[in-house]
């Protein structure tokens, strides 16, 4: 049997293959995106994979496929679960003839998310089983197990990873793909099961409750939960990657390692608690396990020692455990203090980014901006500081509408990317039109879902399987009833400004579409621009573009200002700096002769 080094996400993709999954859907979001990308790349012939327009659509599609007899998988990042949950909750009542599994990749430590929500609560809310793998081997195995549980108990199953399980790599033993149905149908017409109208759903609810009791009983002896007896003075209940950290910090303790963290095996927990002198619960984020264990009347400590914020990495775990007297204090062997005052290296809009022109003007015009989720969120940072709210996918347009109905005297703007617009911006724009609102929606169309790694969406003309139908944005917003719509070249500073002015002057809702391909896709190879130092007057205008290729020249002018220089290794020749330079000091290079390369 071969053994491969796989990330948690790669292992989940492999698990889908080995579980006989035939349909996989999702919307990109760090740290979950690689699951569908790997399925599309490695298991293309075996599994239909798609980027759906949003997580709810992905869940509905997976439900329909599972109703039709295909094992189906949905992937999401933790906040995408909020979008997906409406669809998940009806599948809890219906069940499905073929397995239905949702993978949520949570983000303790908020490496790339707007909050740190603990999606384990969704399992309790939905009354469905929850599996938490601790490494890549378990990530694969638990996906296979999840489909077994899903079909045995006629329920959707939630598999929850964290950034560390999804993005860490460890060795995985591979298995085989089982036989899968080639054809399906006819569609099962069982209205009382699959139509969640109140009169029928009422009859389903008691079945959901009974199913939870059956699952609890099953969990008591399921191999997915295991006891590892060590010293009896300390017992630890834990799950997921936190188990791996705790194993290192407490080599001598006894462990109840829960693979299924909802519903909990109460008798097994009680027996474990009775077998140890002191019981602690180690979990990142919320006291999800601890609350249930304490509600059983068992004396256990968790959040009294460990914080509900951030990751619980081994060094934090060891320090807090020592402070609580659980282990001997171990000083880290660090030999030097951390250097202070190191220059930060924060992400910036790339040299050649099409979003730069918009934020340059928004900053100069001092317009209030409701922002959204995407690379363009970097518009909130200096030198722009031109994004003043940002909450969740698609929020910008609704917030802009709220600013208008509140009677804000200033004209305000929403900035939203093309993929985010299709995800959840469209209903908000329809709402603005319908309610005769006002304000400018800037759709920053860079032809991709850039931040999560360049996935396609309905506006690109490509899908995860290749060729697709492209839905152009301008006719779409016109059809929605927006009267003032302007499409401009994002790399033409004058056109962006003129378009913005026109849209700001409109009476009702208006839309400015700034078109420019993401530089990571277009990868232009133009030679670098240069600055003529004798013409540069150190006015600083080009620095307001926040371009990483524009750097301060050595030495300063008499007034302490620096002239500009262009880093030839970073400049891609987007031309924006030449357009804003008031003295013509920034020069376009002479076009390359044929045969130069």
């Amino acid at each position, binding site marked *: 049997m071969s053994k491969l080094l796989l990330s948690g996400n790669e292992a989940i993709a492999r698990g889908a293959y080995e579980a006989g999954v035939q349909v996989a859907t999702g919307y990109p979001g760090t740290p979950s995106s690689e699951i569908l990308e790997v399925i599309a790349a490695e298991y293309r012939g075996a599994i239909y994979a798609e980027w759906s327009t949003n997580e709810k659509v992905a869940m509905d599609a997976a439900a329909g496929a599972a109703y039709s007899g295909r094992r189906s998988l949905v992937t999401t990042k933790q906040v995408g679960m909020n979008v997906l949950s409406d669809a998940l909750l009806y599948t809890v009542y219906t069940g499905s003839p073929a397995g239905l599994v949702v993978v949520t990749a949570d983000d303790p430590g908020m490496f790339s998310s707007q909050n740190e929500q603990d999606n384990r609560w969704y399992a309790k809310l939905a009354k469905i089983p929850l599996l938490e793998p601790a490494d890549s081997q378990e990530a694969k195995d638990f996906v296979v197990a999840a489909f077994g549980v899903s079909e045995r108990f006629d329920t959707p199953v939630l598999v929850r990873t964290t950034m560390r399980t999804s993005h860490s790599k*460890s060795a995985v033993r591979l298995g085989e793909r089982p036989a899968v149905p080639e054809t399906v149908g006819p569609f099962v017409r069982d209205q009382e099961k699959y139509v969640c109208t109140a009169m029928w759903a009422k009859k389903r609810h008691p079945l959901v409750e009974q199913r939870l009791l059956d699952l609890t009983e099953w969990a008591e002896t399921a191999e997915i939960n295991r006891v590892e007896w060590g010293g009896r003075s300390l017992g630890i209940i834990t799950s997921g990657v936190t188990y791996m950290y705790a194993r290192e910090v407490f080599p001598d303790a006894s462990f109840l390692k829960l693979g299924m963290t909802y519903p909990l095996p109460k008798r097994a927990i009680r027996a474990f608690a009775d077998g140890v002198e002191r019981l602690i619960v180690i979990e990142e984020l919320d006291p999800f396990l601890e609350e249930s264990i304490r509600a059983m009347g068992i004396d256990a400590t968790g959040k009294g020692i460990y914080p509900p914020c951030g990751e619980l*990495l081994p060094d934090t775990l060891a320090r807090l455990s020592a402070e609580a007297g659980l282990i001997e204090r171990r000083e880290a*062997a660090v*030999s030097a203090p951390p*250097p202070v005052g190191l*220059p930060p290296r924060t992400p910036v809009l790339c040299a050649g980014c099409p979003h730069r022109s918009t934020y340059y003007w928004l900053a100069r015009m001092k317009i209030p901006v409701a922002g959204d989720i995407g690379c363009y969120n970097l518009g909130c940072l200096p030198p722009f500081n031109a994004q003043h709210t940002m909450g969740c996918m698609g929020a910008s347009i609704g917030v802009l509408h709220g600013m208008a109905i509140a009677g804000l005297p200033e004209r305000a703007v929403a900035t939203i990317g093309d993929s985010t617009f299709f995800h959840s911006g469209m209903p908000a724009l329809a709402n603005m039109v319908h309610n005769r609102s006002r304000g400018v929606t800037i759709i920053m169309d860079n032809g991709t879902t850039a*931040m*999560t790694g360049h996935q396609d969406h309905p506006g690109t003309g490509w899908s995860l399987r290749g060729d697709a139908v492209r839905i152009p944005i301008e006719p779409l917003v016109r059809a929605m009833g927006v009267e003032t719509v302007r499409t401009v070249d994002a790399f033409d500073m004058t056109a962006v400004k003129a378009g913005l002015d026109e849209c700001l002057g409109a009476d009702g809702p208006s839309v400015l579409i700034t078109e420019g391909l993401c530089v990571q896709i277009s990868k232009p190879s133009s030679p670098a621009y240069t600055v003529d130092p004798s013409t540069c007057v150190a006015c600083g205008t080009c*620095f307001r573009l926040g371009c990483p290729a524009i750097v301060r020249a050595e030495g300063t002018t008499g007034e302490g200002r620096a002239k500009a220089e262009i880093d030839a290794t970073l400049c891609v020749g987007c031309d924006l700096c030449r357009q804003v330079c008031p003295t013509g000091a920034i020069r376009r290079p002479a076009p390359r002769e044929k045969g130069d390369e």
Partner: protein
Amino acid sequence: MTPLNFLVAGVGGQGTLLASDILAEVGIRSGCDAKKSDVLGLAVRGGSVLSHVRWGDRIASPVIGPGEVDFMLAFEPLEAMRGIPFLRSESVVVCNTQPVIPISVSSGTAQYPGRDEIERALRGAASVIHFVDATSRAIALGTPRVANVVLLGAFSTLVDVDPSIWETVVLQRVPARYEEMNRAAFRAGRALLNRKEEA
């Protein structure tokens, strides 16, 4: 065996993830258990990237703590300094000398530390520091893009693993059409720190 802990530090786009993947794979190929974990921050280019790689008989946590690093492979001097809290007095460091200037420096709000300051800080934190001009060596070979493989080659001389295992794993992870270039880069890197192979 006592677990061996490696830290790979660099800037997004420098090829640090490929390097840490290779490092973990070499661990598995040489008969160890291995795990790795990357901290990427936002999935946007140009940010700091730290990868943890661990080899051992049986590795539980994929994450290394402060003062636990045996070897640090730094693709960029400033990022090497950011790795200092992970070092201890026995640590061995290989550091590329070519800086990548962050926008906080190019925009004038911060200063890039001087060569002396960087050297002093690293020498105060670890036992052995090898500064390697991998970028220049890579440019001499034809492209700065293979600097990561030059650096891996240099680094491979410090770890007790058959060089052929390293080379096999490196060449498996690069596109076939760049195989020769990468083989040359790996060997050039080895020669930088291993005088016996210089001929």
